[in-house]
């Protein structure tokens, strides 16, 4: 990356700035996905190599867990990084925000104040109550706190975006798995209980990644996280529209089929097994062996603990050699 000389980018710098934004985007993507092993940080003694996997990844995850949105801006007000929370607040995909002027996301009548605060040389005390978006009646009102930061190559701005109502987001965090963005065990159990109150129908599938410990031990936890994320996306793309999917444990996923007989459960289980094989994760991660899952399934039967029956079926699938499904019908 080209180190800037401290002066603000001018229009003639636009190509360099675009390149710079693309590079920072790559960097954020690399850190998120675990593609980078280490960071080079400036110290008084010169550049120093610091392994990723400790504080940097934790820092990144911490940012994403905050109830406040966080945005990094270049000196000309272009978005370099936007947290998921901020993307949710403005109602747009995070990727689409990178490279856009921040003020475009602020209501028209508030923009002059925001521009003035961003142009302030010492913005550390700037706190503004503004409305996001162009539709004044439907967009949330937020507090913007603007801070100066040092990014490699330029001085930029952090904008902390505090929603006046955190409750909805906190509720989301309680019931979702942060890594995969699927429901977590608590969220799944809540949906299952709700379903069982309404109907004694459907089925539960429990899915466990085969030899997951080997991946963690061989390639490290970042690769393990990458594997889980990819499998989660593969499974989520395979389930039916009204099925509920969750990550209920380290390498364990669960699916609630709200309807369907044994044939439908068998069919979905087969599709799920195939979807994981088709990901080719062993090759993608350079693991030297293919990645598979085992599945235990159980039909919902009044009086039986469907989760326990599905769990027993899962262990049967493991005992029989893995990479297979065992589905227990009504007589279990």
């Amino acid at each position: 990356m080209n180190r800037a000389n401290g002066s603000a980018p001018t229009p003639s710098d636009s190509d360099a700035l675009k390149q710079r934004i693309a590079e920072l985007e790559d960097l954020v993507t690399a850190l998120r996905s675990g593609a980078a092993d280490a960071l080079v940080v400036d110290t008084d003694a010169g550049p120093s190599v610091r392994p990723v996997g400790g504080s940097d990844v934790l820092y990144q995850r911490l940012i994403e867990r905050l109830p406040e949105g966080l945005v990094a801006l270049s000196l000309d007000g272009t978005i370099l990084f936007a947290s998921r929370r901020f993307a949710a607040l403005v109602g747009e995909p995070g990727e689409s925000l990178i490279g856009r002027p921040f003020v475009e996301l602020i209501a028209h009548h508030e923009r002059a104040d925001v521009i003035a605060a961003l142009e302030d040389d010492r913005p550390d005390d700037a706190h503004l109550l503004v409305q996001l978006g162009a539709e004044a009646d439907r967009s949330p009102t937020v507090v913007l706190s603007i801070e100066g930061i040092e990014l490699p190559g330029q001085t930029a701005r952090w904008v902390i975006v505090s929603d006046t109502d955190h409750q909805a987001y906190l509720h989301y965090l309680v019931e979702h798995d942060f890594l995969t963005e699927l429901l977590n065990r608590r969220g799944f159990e809540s949906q299952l209980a709700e379903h069982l109150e309404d109907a004694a129908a459907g089925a539960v599938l429990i899915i466990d990644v085969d030899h997951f410990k080997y991946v963690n031990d061989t390639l490290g936890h970042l690769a393990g996280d990458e594997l889980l994320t990819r499998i989660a996306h593969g499974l989520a793309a395979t389930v039916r529209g009204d099925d509920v999917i969750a990550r209920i444990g380290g390498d364990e996923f669960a699916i609630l089929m709200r309807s369907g007989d044994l044939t439908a459960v068998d069919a979905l289980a087969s599709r799920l097994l195939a979807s994981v094989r088709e990901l080719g994760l062993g090759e993608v991660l350079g693991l030297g062996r293919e990645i598979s899952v085992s599945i235990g399934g159980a039909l919902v039967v009044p009086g039986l603990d469907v989760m326990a029956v599905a769990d027993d079926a899962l262990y049967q699938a493991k005992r029989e050699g893995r990479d297979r499904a065992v589905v227990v019908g009504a007589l279990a």
Partner: protein
Amino acid sequence: MSPESSDGEHPQGDADHYTLRLYVAGQTPRSLAAINNLVNICREHLDGRYDIEVIDLLEDPERARADDIVAIPTLIRALPAPLQRLIGDLSDTERVLTGLEIVPR
């Protein structure tokens, strides 16, 4: 680490010749994978038109300044200009080929 040269001839003025620098940090899995992937991609797609220098920043961290390296592994395409950089273990061959403009984006 010593550079890998495709043929010993370095036609630096040749617009088709790639001068690549791969920044790594010791023998980490991503660094080793990046070296392996890069060599394979060059052998397969650049047909002798490349030089690779592997720079271990654990041995010589000052080298990070020259290309403003922030994350490791990072691959720099120094030539042909303009300079391009890719972060990661280079396992996505298609992304490497387009990122280095060996094939059109």
